[in-house]
């Protein structure tokens, strides 16, 4: 069991997770400049509420949940809205043959990043938590405050959105499915 989190040991116990918080924040807030501010704000909020951390669970989901909540509050305070999910997007048609296999080998990571960032927040965050941060469905549900079933469905839809964007990317692939220059 993890030791109790206090103001005294806070920096020591959370420091191993700062890079991970930053990675999550950078892909959450779209603006690369905001990630460090977001993590700082999240750490200060975590420090103020360190007694709320339940030492029985891993500390990472708790910290990531705070990053997410701070981002959510900032988005709301800034008058921006988390985008509504795109319900009419056709996620189930067939893709270009082989295009996704080529996407895996493409060097054009800038395009991949753009496609990832174009996925609406509530789907992207689940994809990041599970695919990148390697949380379990239960942990991702804790971070997002959504039921596990919803998390699973969002994960699959996020994958389908990404698949569609990659397959539709005419700049990434030419008509024959070959990677363009």
């Amino acid at each position, binding site marked *: 069991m993890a030791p109790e989190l206090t103001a005294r040991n806070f920096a020591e116990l959370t420091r191993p997770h700062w890079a991970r918080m930053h990675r999550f924040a950078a892909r959450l807030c779209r603006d690369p400049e905001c990630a*460090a501010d977001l993590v700082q704000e999240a750490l200060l909020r975590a420090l103020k509420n360190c007694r709320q951390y339940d030492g029985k669970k891993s500390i990472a989901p708790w910290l990531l949940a705070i990053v997410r909540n701070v981002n959510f509050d900032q988005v709301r305070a800034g008058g921006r809205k988390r985008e509504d999910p795109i319900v009419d997007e056709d996620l*189930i048609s067939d893709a270009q043959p082989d295009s*996704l296999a080529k996407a895996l080998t493409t060097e054009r990571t800038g395009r991949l990043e753009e496609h990832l960032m174009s996925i609406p927040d509530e789907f992207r965050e689940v994809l990041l938590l599970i695919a990148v941060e390697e949380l379990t469905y239960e942990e991702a549900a804790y971070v997002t405050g959504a039921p596990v079933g919803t998390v699973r469905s969002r994960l699959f839809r996020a994958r389908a959105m990404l698949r569609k964007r990659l397959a539709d990317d005419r700049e990434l692939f030419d008509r024959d499915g070959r990677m363009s220059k």
Partner: protein
Amino acid sequence: MGACRDIRKAILDAGAAEGWAVTRHLSSCTACVQWLADLQMAEMTIKRLPVPEIPPGFETRMACAIAQERGHASEDSAARGFRIPKFWIPVAASLAAAALFSVAGIWLVVKEKKAAPAPFEQGVALSVALNAAAPLPGADVMLHLPNGVDLAGATRSTGGRHVAWRQDLPAGNTAFDVGLVAFAKGDHRVDVVVCRKNDCATGTVVVHAGEGRIRLTSIGGTVQDDNQIGLSFALSKTAGIPTKEEGI
């Protein structure tokens, strides 16, 4: 395709390829099996993305913010072992005009050493002079003490901690002394950090404890003689580490 669409929609809704109808369809439809594999592959593409780069000075800035929040010299009692000398030899420094403000010149002087009682304890006095080109009201000064080094007066190392306090730095020199004790042989890095809001600068001092006399050296600084060290840096607007290092 009608059946395929229904099956795929069911998979997206459930977030899993489960259920009798789904598994039965997948056993005979290569298009849907491929579609499912594509979903997995799409996820794998993002694992290949480069990790967003951590800005320089990120760790220091976070440590500084945390130390600040913990209440400036309260429970960590920066007062223990600190005093501001009445006099300090001014250190002149000219720094990049682009910097919002600057702090130049950390001077470290080894003043004393103690005998090392068992198991191990070596003391050293660190004198730091901060030279601000312009007044810095509400600057946060922090020492990051690694595991194995603590403030003089401590009976054992608390295992790595930050000591921070806030003070107004006038233009020119401000100096303070701090007594340090090493509880383990070897080299220990002590970071000296000055922050104002999100702008931070740091200098690193290495405490060499062990055989013979305890010594201090700096990383990127200039050793003037046996026991004097000069570090210069500018606080950068973009938060972080020294944008410039000059020997004095």
